[in-house]
């Protein structure tokens, strides 16, 4: 199979997603048997925006596969600060590495990759557009914890406007059958029109609410994201909403026993530390799963058996 690039979940089939999850699951079971798979291969990690988990888990994934890594973690140390185009960066990269992961604040660079990159490129997040590998590890976690992604009810809460993981997660969920989505956010942070149109095109039904307590008893998954303080023109709005978009222990009284709470991290106050010990809390497992999923992605996109 010749996979080209990964910049959007929309272009990934459900079959491919399931293949990646199956492979990630085998890796998770016996990581050592994959330790030599990428010997002699180089992963370039180009992070034009800050990252903790995505970069470290990609690097960890490549090192666990026996490959090597090169790259940078700030736009300041790259030639983009001298005005180099992304197209030129990609052309050069073709000769320096076998696969690349790139995070950039500029949106739509997947189309540049299509035209100028000859090595497989994987998005590590593009602006507020998408974060496809985060969505894959989210879906992998759901599949692992609940045994399925079909027929679930999920509440997605917080900043649905600027959070780049949200469109990817929704596009991924749209591939599954009978998924019910509750979008929980203040009206000002609701999903963008283009995302809404894509969901309508793909037949993913969603309902909108401002209060998680109204729907918590229905949920199999509560996916929480951070309200980003810097997005609020009026700081008092942030202070007011912060409390309303925080999960309290008492809110969980009506939750199903099997419900899981996920968060792409970093969290601020939306999930207080006291929740970490509860059976619902799966966000650190989710972060750990990022390594297995990214190992599977590297293998698939490099075409390594």
């Amino acid at each position, binding site marked *: 199979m010749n996979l080209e690039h990964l910049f959007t979940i929309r272009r990934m089939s459900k079959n491919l997603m399931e293949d990646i999850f199956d492979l990630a699951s085998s890796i998770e079971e016996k990581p050592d048997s994959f330790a030599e798979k990428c010997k002699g291969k180089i992963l370039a990690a180009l992070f034009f925006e800050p990252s903790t988990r995505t970069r470290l888990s990609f690097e960890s994934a490549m090192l666990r596969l026996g490959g090597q890594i090169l790259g940078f973690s700030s736009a300041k140390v790259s030639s983009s600060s001298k005005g180099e185009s992304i*197209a030129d960066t990609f052309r050069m990269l073709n000769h320096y590495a076998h696969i690349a992961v790139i995070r950039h604040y500029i949106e739509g660079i997947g189309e540049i990759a299509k035209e100028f990159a000859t090595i497989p490129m994987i998005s590590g997040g593009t602006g507020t557009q998408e974060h496809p590998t985060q969505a894959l590890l989210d879906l992998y976690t759901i599949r692992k914890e609940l045994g399925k992604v079909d027929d679930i009810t999920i509440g997605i809460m917080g900043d649905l406007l600027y959070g780049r993981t949200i469109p990817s997660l929704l596009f991924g969920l749209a591939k599954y059958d009978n998924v019910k989505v509750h979008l929980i956010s203040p009206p000002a942070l609701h999903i963008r029109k283009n995302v809404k149109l894509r969901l309508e095109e793909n037949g993913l039904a969603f309902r909108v609410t401002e209060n998680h307590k109204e729907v918590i008893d229905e949920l199999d998954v509560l996916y929480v994201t951070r309200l980003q303080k810097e997005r609020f023109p009026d700081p008092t709005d942030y202070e007011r909403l912060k409390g309303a978009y925080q999960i309290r222990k008492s809110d969980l009284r009506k939750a199903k026993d099997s419900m899981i709470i996920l968060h792409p991290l970093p969290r601020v106050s939306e999930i207080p530390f006291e929740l970490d010990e509860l059976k619902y809390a799966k966000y650190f497992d989710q972060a750990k799963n990022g390594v297995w999923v990214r190992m599977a992605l590297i293998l698939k996109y490099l075409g390594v058996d």
Partner: protein
Amino acid sequence: MNEDKNKLIVRKIENGTVIDRIPPGKALRILEVLGIDANYPYTVALAIRVLSKKMSLKDVVKIKGKELTENEVHKLSFIAPGASVNIIQNFEVQRKIQLEIPDHVEEFIKCLNPNCVSNSHEPITSSFDIISKKPLILRCIYCDRVMEDKYLSGKL
């Protein structure tokens, strides 16, 4: 005699473009988009809200010495869908184009998203799929953002 009274007489042009069946009130916008103002050196005839058998009211524009580019035809199709463009040479209609909103457009409009790669220094041009013609909605092929009628009206 009555018929003659209501008839608008505008002389034929030798070479140029006649845009007919323009939705009423859009003629001035068409001239603006084509960059035709008081400094244009040739004859321009403009008729606004004249009687039309097919549309009840319409605008008509005749521009001597002007042949539309592909890009201009695209732009006009958004402003005056349904209008017809006649390219005139030696007083004869050489080509007739029915203005129709295309399924895809390139270059002539910028993406509204300042962080879109089509707005940065890259060897590409802006490119949009038209996902709805009524209401008009364009989708950027790069960043996936959509631009709607209310935003586009000021840009086209």
